[in-house]
């Protein structure tokens, strides 16, 4: 290349550098080895892929937990610790992570991550994707309440203070009968709470049996959204009426996360040991994955 050509390419190079600095985001870094737990959150994508979140790593499995692949995550957020993962419906490349850093999002399966927290304040303890809309997301900030985003996480609006007590997990359901598009279920220290997603007031979602109260996990079978599951130290509870009544299904151990494969109804539960269990009979029995 002649010197005059080099000089002509300088403005283009400068432009590229500016664009990279402004819009590139943070590169994700993959974890090494395999997931070992503890698991802080679980999601099953509409494709059937399982997303397993540890405090500092994110993993995916295409074979219901038989094998795992690391999804690169932003190092800074990983050091602060992840608390929740959400995966918008029918957006296979898109994942959101929540934690004390707020919310970060990738649109390329972890290649790059950007902070999307306009309107959010404080740390995010739970995330949930809308059961039907690819653009609507929900986040729980412990210091303020439940936020809603209608633009895929770019901006957030505080909707209400959330249910009473400590909210540990959140899930959205398209169960009919809501005044808006569906319902939110929350796993709390006082059991399961429920609200229409118009945020018209949280109320207890029935009473869990067997004297148990605190739950750490909640999930909905979107094939039949009246079917709700909750899990905690006392085991896994199931409801066939949208959370009005419950029964104890099984005691696989202290359940810290639950997720449902929306295409098959297969349930996944995270426990201290083994790390991940699978149930193919609606939570009545479990076996380790892998």
């Amino acid at each position, binding site marked *: 290349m002649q010197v005059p050509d080099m000089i002509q390419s300088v403005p283009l190079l400068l432009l590229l550098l500016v664009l990279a600095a402004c819009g590139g985001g943070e590169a994700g870094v993959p974890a090494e080895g395999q997931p070992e737990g503890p698991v802080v959150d679980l999601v099953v994508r509409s494709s059937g892929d399982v997303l397993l979140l540890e405090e500092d790593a994110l993993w995916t499995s295409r074979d219901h937990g038989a094998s795992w692949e690391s999804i690169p995550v932003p190092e800074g957020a990983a050091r602060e610790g992840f608390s929740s993962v959400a995966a918008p419906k029918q957006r296979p490349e898109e994942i959101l992570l929540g934690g004390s850093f707020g919310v970060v999002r990738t649109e390329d399966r972890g290649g790059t991550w950007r902070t999307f927290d306009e309107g959010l304040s404080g740390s995010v303890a739970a995330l949930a994707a809308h059961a039907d809309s690819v653009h609507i997301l929900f986040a729980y900030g412990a210091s303020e309440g439940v936020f809603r985003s209608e633009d895929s996480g770019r901006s957030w609006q505080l909707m209400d203070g959330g249910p009473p007590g400590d909210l540990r997990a959140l899930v959205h359901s398209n*169960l*009919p*009968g*809501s*005044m*808006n598009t569906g319902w939110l279920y929350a796993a709390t220290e006082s059991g399961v709470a429920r609200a229409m997603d*118009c*945020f*018209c*007031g*949280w*109320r*207890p979602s029935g009473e869990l049996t067997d004297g148990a109260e605190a739950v750490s996990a909640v999930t909905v079978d979107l094939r039949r959204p009246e079917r709700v599951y909750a899990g905690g130290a006392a085991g896994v509870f199931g409801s066939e009426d*949208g959370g*009005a009544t419950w029964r104890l299904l099984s005691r696989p151990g202290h359940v810290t996360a639950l997720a449902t494969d929306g295409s098959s109804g297969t349930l996944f539960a995270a426990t201290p040991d083994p790390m991940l269990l699978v149930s193919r009979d609606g939570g009545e029995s479990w076996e380790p994955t892998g």
Partner: protein
Amino acid sequence: MTDGLRWLLPGLVLVVAACDRERAANAAQGADPATLAHGEKLYTELCASCHGQSGEGAPDWQEQQMTAMGEMPPPPHDSAGHTWRHSDALLYRIVEQGWRDPFNTTERLTMPPFGDTLDPWEIRAVIEYLKTLWTPDQRRFQAAESRGAPYPDAALEP
């Protein structure tokens, strides 16, 4: 056509267009005093016995617990409630057709339908009166929710 008529017709078109804009503006920004007064009158006659004279709801509504009959108590419509979270279209439909909480143990419409009692404009008048019980922020939120879900056209005129 005479010269006078030639100028009258365009003038009439402009007046009609201005009136349409005024009606649309009223619908968008809130109702006129006469509509609000009629809405308050209807609310007092038909709604206050359940939702409170000032829209404060049933005495125990905040507990969010089923009544002895297995039904959620009537909620408030003032700024303490959640009515402001819903679009004009949804509020209109609930007043017209009634509603029941899907978790009620009874099957009846605990919010009865008023579509046979009130004409469309009167349903709107009641809802517009409720908006006077909200804060400015709540009215703005509700207006934004209503942009894509407005009143039906039949409700815009008496």
